[in-house]
Structures are given as C-alpha cells and as structure tokens.
C-alpha cells in the first residue's frame, strides 16, 4: 500500500471517529434537551394565587398577610363573574320550561369549567377531594382551562366518507342575548387578575409529598424510595460481588465446576430484568418471606441479584489486571495469601472495582421491571430506615410509568411526570459523578 493511501485511510478513520462522537453528542442533546426543558417546568413555573393559598393552608408556608391580601384582591375581581351567574340564574327562573332545561345544562357546564379554573364558587360546600378545593395552581394549565371555558369542541359529521372534523364553537354563542353573555369576555380579559400568576421556583417539588394523586405537591417518597433501593442494592451486591470476584480470581483455580460457575454468571448477566422481578417475588417474598408484603428489602435483594453478574465480572477483570509482581513481592515478604489479597491486590484493583459498582448503581436506580412485583407501589409515604425492611415504597422509574399509563387524569399532571423523569436522570448522573470523583481520588492516592 502506498503511503498516501495509508494516510488517507488513517485520516478517514479518525474522521469517522469524530463523526461518531458528534452523532452521540447530537443524540444526547436530542434526548436530554426536551427532558431538561419539560422537566424544569415542574420546578419553575408561573404559579397562581391558588398555589400560594394551597401552600399556606396545607403546609403553613408563605407570608400569611400578603397571601390573604392577594386572595382578597383576586376574590374582588372574581365576584363580578359570580354575580353575573347569580343574576342569570334569577333570569332563568322567568324563562319558559323547555328553554330553561337546555340553558340550565349549558350553565352547569359553564359553572363546572369556572370551578376548574378558580376553585369552588363562594358559598358552595367544601368538596372532599383536594383537586376540587382549589383552582388551577399553574398558569399554563389555567390557559388550557380558559380555552375549554371559552370554546366547546364540536364535530362536523357532514362528510359521510370520513371522520368528523373538529370545530371550535364559542361557548358564548349559547348565551347570546342573555345576561350571561358578557361573562365570557370578562373572564377572558380578567383571568390574570383572578389568578395573579407569578414566576415561582418550587424547589420543594423534590421534598414535598404528592397530594391527591399528584395533583399537588412533589415527589419526595419516590425520590427517597429510589435512593433507598439504589444504596441498599449496592450494600448487598458490592460485598458479595467483590468477595465472589476475589474467590474466582485468586482462590478458585481451574476446574469444570469453576468454569460452569463462570458460564452461569455470564448467562445471568443476559437474563431480562422482568425475569429477575418474578424471581424476586417467588423466591424472596413468597418462599423466603423476607417481608410479609412487597418491601424495599425485597426490592434491594432482587436488584442485587440483577447487578451481581456485572459486579463480579468487572471486579474479577480488575483483580486479574493487577500485575503479578505485586502479589509475588507481597508473598516473598512473608505475607499470607489472605493479607496479600486484602492489603495489596484489592487496593490496587479498587478503581476498577469501583467502576463496576458505579455502572451497577446507575442500573439499579433506573430499573423498573425487577421492582414492580417486589418493592414499588404507586402511592405510599416516605419511609424511615427501619420501615424499609417491611414496607414497599414509591420509586421514580415505576411511578413515571404508572403516571403515564394508569393515572386517571394524566393530561392534567404531565409536569409531574416530566419532573420525575428529570429528577431520575439527574439522580443517576449525580450518583455516577460522586462515584467517579471518589474513584479519581482513590486512584490518585494509590498512585502517590
């Protein structure tokens, strides 16, 4: 091959490498940018006076007098709308019977939509569900609610060959010529004064418990549950995994039994995670009975079994990579095999072992399938350390799935779902970062 061809090939190869890296960065951006953009809306959003009222009444946060003044000011603007409805109801009494029934049904819808925006009308009994006790807490949701208040979506079925086309019909059309007609324009123009949106940084989203099926509050039980599961898993998997790796690398020698065990570990690493989940349910809960229901402990054990192969394999590689001379030097100085492993080989292999633990930690935090049957629930309190032995917990990966597929009103609480996704991604990132820093420090100390 001529030199110029070789150079060209060489250059195109590095070009390919750069292209691959750029592609990866691009993919990462495409993936992470929407997560960050949408997820941050759970933390930073324009909160209405309803949000502040909720915070004050449910957890005593905020300046009592200032919020009271705000509520009064908002109520002043709202009163005009309620007065219009009251006047219209009086007028309705005078109308004919058939006309009355039709208008009454439309009025019912108007009032329902208004209650969704502003909370229950004054004078009405306090509803039992929190979501009905307050109006929209977020301005972005309030604007969606305003659209539903102003327009009815009807469908035009006139074309028999296809599906109907959606038509936005102004709700006010049903009330032309009545005293309710000005209500719609009034609400549209004054909604901002009725709800008083203000940009709010709700950092407590992380540390608040969710209220009323995530309509209010934050995601603390799920965050804490994920932390418990991740750390608990590593507490079990790391010692067991490293001990097995030491045994396999230093003491086991060669033999058909050992190679069978190695093959089994390799196979285990390829088993789908849902199989581990079912195994955990059948073995740890139903057979061993480590707890009398799903529990964090059972989840940790299951996740530990899941990540063990990775920990064992990578740790073994790290131990085998320690130069033979270290071991020989230690043995020649009269150290026993045990202390050679503990004091010479393991410290030298520690950075590699930590890498395996780091990778496994990220996996344990994000796995959903193994914890469905062993640890995760869609609603629960944040647990104390002792409760983790016997009680299940919400956990981020499961709750994200649960919210988007099973929640009865998911369209109204998408921000919570995105917030959870962002938190999970950041959590895994932070765990990894911490471990990488630790590893770097260790490596430096060992080198020096």
């Amino acid at each position, binding site marked *: 091959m001529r030199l110029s061809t070789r150079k060209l090939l060489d250059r195109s190869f590095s070009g390919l490498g750069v292209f691959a890296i750029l592609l990866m960065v691009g993919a990462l951006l495409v993936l992470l940018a929407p997560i960050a953009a949408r997820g941050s809306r759970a933390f930073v959003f324009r909160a209405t006076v309803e949000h502040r009222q909720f915070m004050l009444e449910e957890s005593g946060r905020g300046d009592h007098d200032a919020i009271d003044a705000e509520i009064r000011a908002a109520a002043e603007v709202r009163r005009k709308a309620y007065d219009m409805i009251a006047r219209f109801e009086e007028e309705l009494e005078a109308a004919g019977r058939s006309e009355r029934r039709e208008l009454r049904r439309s009025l019912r819808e108007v009032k329902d939509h208004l209650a969704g925006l502003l909370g229950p009308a004054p004078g009405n009994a306090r509803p039992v569900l929190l979501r009905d006790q307050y109006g929209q807490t977020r301005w972005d949701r309030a604007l969606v609610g305003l659209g539903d208040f102003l327009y009815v979506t009807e469908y035009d079925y006139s074309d028999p060959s296809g599906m109907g086309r959606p038509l936005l019909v102004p709700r006010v059309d049903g009330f032309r010529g009545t005293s309710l007609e000005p209500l719609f324009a009034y609400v549209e123009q004054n909604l901002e004064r009725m709800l008083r949106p203000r940009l709010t940084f709700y950092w407590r989203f992380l540390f608040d418990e969710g209220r009323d099926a995530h309509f209010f509050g934050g995601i603390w039980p799920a965050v804490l549950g994920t932390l418990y599961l991740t750390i608990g898993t590593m507490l079990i998997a790391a010692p067991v995994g490293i001990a097995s790796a030491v045994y396999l690398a230093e003491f086991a020698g060669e033999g058909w039994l050992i190679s069978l065990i190695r093959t089994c570990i390799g196979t285990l690493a390829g088993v789908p995670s849902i199989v581990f989940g079912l195994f955990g349910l059948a073995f740890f809960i139903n057979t061993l009975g480590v707890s009398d229901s799903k529990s964090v402990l059972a989840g940790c054990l299951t996740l530990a079994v899941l990540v063990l192969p990775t920990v064992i394999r990578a740790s073994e590689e790290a131990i085998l990579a320690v130069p033979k001379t270290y071991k020989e030097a230690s043995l020649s100085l009269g150290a026993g095999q045990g202390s050679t492993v503990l004091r010479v080989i393991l410290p030298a292999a520690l950075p590699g072992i930590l890498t395996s633990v780091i990778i496994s930690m990220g996996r344990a935090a994000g796995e959903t399938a193994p914890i469905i049957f062993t640890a995760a629930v869609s*609603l629960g309190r944040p647990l104390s350390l002792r409760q983790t032995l016997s009680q299940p917990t919400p956990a981020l990966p499961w709750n994200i799935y649960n919210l988007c597929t099973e929640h009865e009103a998911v369209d109204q609480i998408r921000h919570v779902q995105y917030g959870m996704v962002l938190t999970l991604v950041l959590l895994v990132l932070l765990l990894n970062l911490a471990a990488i820093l630790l590893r770097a420090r260790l490596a430096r100390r060992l080198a020096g």
Partner: protein
Amino acid sequence: MKRSTLRTVILLAVASAFALAVQTRGVHAQESTAGSTKIVVDGSTTVGPIAKAFAEHYMGLHPEVNITVSESGSGNGAKSLINGVCDVADMSRFMKEREFKAAVEKGVMPVAHVVAMDGLPIIVHPSNPVKALTVQQVRDIYTGKITNWREVGGPNVRIVKISRDTNSGTYETFAKLIMKKEKIAPDTEHVGSNGAVRQRVQSTPAAIGYAGLGFVDRTVKALGINGVYPDRESVRSGRYPIARPLFMFTDGYPALGTRLHAFVTLHLSPKGQEIIEDIGFVPVTDY
C-alpha cells in the same frame, strides 16, 4: 493479628444482622395487637383511583399510618391476597372459583366489600360520527365479524379494536357481559390499564375500546349501548347493560376497631361516597 480483626468485623456484621431481624420481629408483634400501621393495597387499575383517594383521605386523618397502593390488575390483586402479601385486594370482578380454592387451601378466607358501582362505557374517538351501538354490534366488532365503521353507520374506515389484557377484571367483565364466551379476534390490541385504553382511543380516530366510568373524560366519546348512555343514573338503575360492582377483598372480615376495618368501610361514610362520586364512579350507598 490482621486475620483476627477481619474475623471480628464479620462476627459484628452477622450479629447486627441478627439484632435487626429480632428487632423487626418485635415490632411486628407490637403492631398486631394495636392494629398494623401498615396497610398494603394491591390490584385493579379501575379501583386504583378510589383506593388512592381513600388512602390519602385516611392518612390525612391518621398520619401514623402508611397505606401503600399498587395497581397491577385484578388477577394480580387476587394472587397477592392468596399469597398473603397484601391486606386488601382491589378487584373489578368477583373472585373466580379456583382463586377461592387456592385461597382457602392457604388459609385465606376472602371477604368481598363492594365499594362502588361502575359502568363499562364503550368509547370511541370524538370525531367518530357513530353515536350508539347494540350489544350484538359490539360483540360482532370484537369477534371480527364487523371490521369497518361503515357497517354500523360510520365512515369507510377500518375499526381498530382496543382491549384490556387478560389479567384485568375489566376484561373479564367485558368478556362475560358482551362477548358471552365468544373469542375476541386475534387482531385486537391488548393494553395494560384503563388509562392506556383511553390514551390509545383519544389518539386514534378509528379506535374502539372500553374503560371504567371514572376514566372516561371529554377526550373520548362514550357510545350509547342498546340506546342507553352510561351515566350515574343509568348505571345505578341497571338500565345501562354493562355495569358491575367494584370490590375490595380482605382475608376474613377485619376485626372491628382496626385501621384495616376503617379503611375498607370508608365507602359507607358520607365522605367516602362523595370521593367515589367525585372520581366518577357510582356510590353503592345512595339512598
């Protein structure tokens, strides 16, 4: 010397593990006399919203209690109760004979608490001009005899059939009341929860599906069945043909005065009825 420290560490670890185990056992004994502070609820995704709202309501009044709710389907709820890993099994269908047998063999005596009534609206995309079907037509759609909306008065569009998975109590109800032992066509899509059915239907103009009453909102259109539209009144009176009770099962009737008893009888209180009504289901105790 070094070896002995290692031994001490291992001994300490084993000892502390034992201590922890003994300690938790002690806690269990203590709890069982005062009524457990932990209630584990598992099962139907239809009953899920009720169970979650009840749990939050109850925990609001009794902050020392932790009620956990998972929604894994009626079948899984029954299995959990039989295996003794949950206290309350939410179910949107009654227990089957073999589930009862399995339960009794394990010493679990299932007791049913009917917490609410539910209709099973047949839902389509709101752009679909079809307003009503008969039970026979719905059955023919799901068996595959009717494959085009044109055959039931709609446009010339192929029907996309959405059904629940076979672990679901909603599926069982549908199979019993609509399909009447006929097989659902193999080209039907099976999804895992009520919410997933609604999302599939609201995003697919040609779709048809079914879900619990509490899951039907303005983004989908409920069809009239045999001329009756599903609402509280028609479900309560039995005029709507696809209605069913929603259950919570416990192992035996819970001892009076326990938290478990209070939880599974919450639907009898005025607050409980209001919660059920607000979520969109029909209270049983409506006089």
